[in-house]
C-alpha cells in the first residue's frame, strides 16, 4: 500500500528524518510511534505531500507518490482546526470538494456521516458555536468523507472525551474492515495494542523498531513469569530454577512472585519445582507491553548516545 524508502529530511539546524524506510501493508492499522519531536509529523507531512523529502522515495500502491494520490489519502492533522466563522455544512462541502468530490456527492455523504455521529442538527451552525468535541467529530468526518484508501490520523484521540474516543475508535475499526488502510501516529500505547497490527518506532529521526505488534512483543519476551500461590510464604535457598525479581505478599495468604527463568529452564520446570511446596493459582508469562518496549527502546537509544 505504502512503501517508504530511505527518506531523509533536513531542516535548518536539525535533521527530522534520517534514512527512514517503512512498509505499510494494505488493510492494516499501522501505528507510527515515537516521543515528541521524533519526526513523526515530518514523515506524515511528507506522505501528504505537504513538504517534500530531501532524498528518498515513497510509493503508493506501487506508483511513485504524486498529486493524483492526494484524493486517495485522508489526513487528520494533530493540530486541528476549521474556519471559525464558516457554517459547518458549507465547510464540510468545501473541504470535500477540495478533495475532488462533487457538490451533490459531498452533501449526500456529509448527511450520512452527520447522522451517524449524531451531529445532523448542526448543519447551519458556525464552527465557533460548536463544542470542542463536535468540532473534532466534524473534522474526522472531513478526513474520511472522500472514502480514501489511506487514512492518516495524527494523534486522533487527543481532545476527545472517553465516550467520543470509543465512538471514533469504532469508526476507525469499521473503516478498516471496509478496506481502508489506516496509519496513525500516537504516543498513547494502550490504543496501539488495541488497534494496531503493525508499528514503527521513530526516535530522534531514526526508525529504531518496526514490525507486527505481536512479533515485536514476542521478541521482547525475556522468560519472565508471574506466579500466584496460596499458603505459607515460600523461602528460597537458591536451588530454584529461577531468579526472583519481585515478591509481593498479601494478608489473605495469596502471594505474587515475579520471576525470571534462566535460559535452560522452561515454565514446566517452575511448576515442577513449586507444586510440591505450595498451591499454585496462576502461572503466566509476562510479555512486555508496547509501552514498556517503547520506554526501553527510547531510553536505550538515549544512553547509547551518551
Amino acid at each position, binding site marked *: 500500500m505504502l512503501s517508504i524508502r530511505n527518506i531523509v529530511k533536513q531542516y*535548518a539546524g536539525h535533521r527530522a528524518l534520517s534514512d527512514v524506510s517503512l512498509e505499510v501493508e494494505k488493510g492494516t492499522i499501522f501505528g507510527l510511534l515515537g516521543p515528541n519531536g521524533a519526526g513523526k509529523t515530518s514523515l506524515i*507531512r511528507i506522505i*501528504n*505531500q*505537504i*513538504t*517534500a523529502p*530531501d532524498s528518498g522515495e515513497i510509493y503508493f500502491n506501487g506508483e511513485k507518490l504524486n498529486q493524483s494520490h*492526494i484524493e486517495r*489519502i485522508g*489526513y487528520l*492533522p494533530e*493540530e*486541528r*482546526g*476549521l*474556519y*471559525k*466563522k*464558516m457554517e459547518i455544512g458549507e465547510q464540510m462541502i*468545501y*473541504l470535500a*470538494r*477540495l*478533495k475532488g468530490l462533487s457538490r451533490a456527492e459531498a452533501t449526500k455523504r456529509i448527511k450520512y456521516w452527520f447522522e451517524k455521529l449524531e451531529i445532523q442538527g448542526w448543519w447551519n451552525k458556525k464552527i465557533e458555536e460548536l463544542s470542542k468535541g463536535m468540532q473534532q467529530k466534524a*473534522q474526522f468526518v*472531513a478526513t474520511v468523507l472522500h472514502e480514501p484508501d489511506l487514512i492518516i490520523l495524527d494523534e486522533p484521540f487527543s481532545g476527545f472525551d472517553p465516550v467520543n474516543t470509543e465512538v471514533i475508535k469504532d469508526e476507525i475499526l469499521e473503516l478498516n474492515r471496509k478496506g481502508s488502510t489506516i496509519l496513525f501516529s500516537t504516543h498513547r500505547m494502550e490504543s496501539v495494542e488495541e488497534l494496531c497490527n503493525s508499528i514503527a518506532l521513530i526516535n530522534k529521526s531514526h526508525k529504531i523498531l518496526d514490525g507486527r505488534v505481536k512479533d515485536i512483543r514476542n521478541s521482547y519476551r525475556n522468560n519472565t513469569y508471574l506466579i500466584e500461590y496460596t499458603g505459607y510464604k515460600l523461602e528460597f535457598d537458591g536451588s530454584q530454577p529461577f531468579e526472583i525479581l519481585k515478591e509481593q505478599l498479601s494478608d489473605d495468604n495469596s502471594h505474587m512472585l515475579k520471576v525470571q527463568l534462566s535460559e535452560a529452564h522452561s515454565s514446566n520446570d517452575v511448576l515442577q519445582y513449586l507444586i510440591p511446596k505450595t498451591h499454585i493459582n496462576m502461572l503466566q508469562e509476562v510479555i512486555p507491553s508496547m509501552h514498556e518496549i517503547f520506554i526501553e527502546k527510547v531510553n536505550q537509544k538515549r544512553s547509547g548516545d551518551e
Partner: protein
Amino acid sequence: MNKVLLIIQREYLVRVKKKSFIVMTLLVPGLILVMYGIIYLIATNSDELNKERTVRVKDDSGVFQGKFEDHKNIKFQTTTEGITKAKDDLRKNEDDFLLIIPANYEKKDAVKIFSKKKPNFTIITDINDQMSDIASGNSMVKAGIDTAKLHAIKSDISIDARQITDKGEEDSSIGAAYGVGIAGAILIYLSLFIYGAQVMRGVIEEKTSRIIEVIVSSVKPFQLMLGKIIGVGAVGLTQFFLWIILSTAVTVVAGKVFIKDAITQPQKEQVSKNQPVQVHTSPQKDSASASTPSADVPQSPAMGFFNSLKTINFGYILSCFVFYFLTGYLLYSALFAAVGSAVDSETETQQFMFPITLPLLFTYILSFSFLINNPDSTLAFWLSVIPFTAPVAMMVRVPFGVPAWQLAISMFMMVVGFLFTTWVASRIYRVGILMYGKKTSYKELSKWFFYKE
C-alpha cells in the same frame, strides 16, 4: 486549477456575505446621497440669498451719494428721511437694509447698517467693498489724481488658464486635476492597505485556526495563496463596481428630483444661477460634454472648477485606477500574505509590515506636497516606474496627463513587479504557514526563501 477556483469562490463568498461588506457598500452611496441633499439645500436656500434687496442709503458725508452701483440682487436708494422714520420703514419692508453713513465715516465702526433680518454676509461684503472703492477713489481725487487716470490705474485681473491641445485651446483643468489626483492617490492608498490587510488576516486566520494543514494536504500552498489573493481582489473590485453603479444611480435619481424641483421655481434667472450646482448633480451631462470647451462666459470660481471637471477624462482615469489597483494589489497582497504566514498573530506583524508599507506611505505623503505640484518632475517619473510606489504616484500624475511611453513603462514594471513579489512571497509562504510558535526573524525568512521544495 479547478481547486484554485474553489478557493477563490470560498474566499469571495465568505467576504461578500459579511455584514461589514454590505454596510460599506451601502454606506458610500448613502453618503453621496447625503452630500446631494446638502447641495440641494444650499441651492434652494440660495434663492433666499438671491432675493432682491433694497439698501436705503442715508449719506451725511455726501461722498457716496449716487456712487453705489446696483448689482443683481442689491438695489441702492438714497433716502433723506430722518433716522427714526427710516427705521420704522425698515420694520415694514423686512428684506430691506438701511445704511447710515455719518460725516466722519472714516472712523472705525462709524458706518452702520440696519436690517430686520440678520444681514447676510455677501451683502455686507458687497457694500463694504463698494464703500472702500468709493472712499479711496474719493481720497485720490482729493489728492489731485484725475478720475480718468484713476480708472486707468484700477485694473481688473482675472486669469483664465488655457491649455494648447490637439483640438485647439481648451480650458485647462489644473484645479480639477489637482482634486482628482489627490482623490485618486488617497483612494488607491487606502484600498491597497485595506485589501492587502484582508489577505494577511485571512492567512493568519488559517494559520491560527490550524485549518491550514488540512487544506495544504489537498492543495499546494501556492494555489491557496493565489486563490486567496484573487478572491479578496475580486471582493475589492466588486465593491468598487457596486459603488460606481449605486453612486451613479443615486446621482441620476437625485439629479432628476432636484433638477425638476429647481426648474419649477418661478425665477428663471435663478435657475440659470443654480446651474453650477446642477451640473455637479448630473454627471451624465458631465461626461457627455467632457471634452467640449465650456462657454466663454464669466464664471464664479466654483463654477470654473465644476466646468474644468468636465475636461477630465473619467473613463481614462478609471481604467488607470483599475489597472493600478489590480497590479498594486497583487504586488502588495502577496507580500502581506507572506507576512501573515510568518507570524502567529496579528500583533506580531508590525516589524514586517513597516518596511513593506514604507514606500507606499512615502509616496502617499509626497503626493500631497511635491508630486501634485510637480507631476512632470524626474522624481515623479522614477516614483511611477518603481512598482512599489507607482500606484500612488501614477494616480496623482494621470489627471495631469502622462506621456504614453511613461505609462507603458510603468505598467510593464507593475506586471514584472507583482510577478516578482508573488514568486518571493510564495517561497516564504509555503514554509511559514506550517511553522508554529517560533518568533520569526528576517534571517529565518531568508532561510525559508532558499528552502528546496
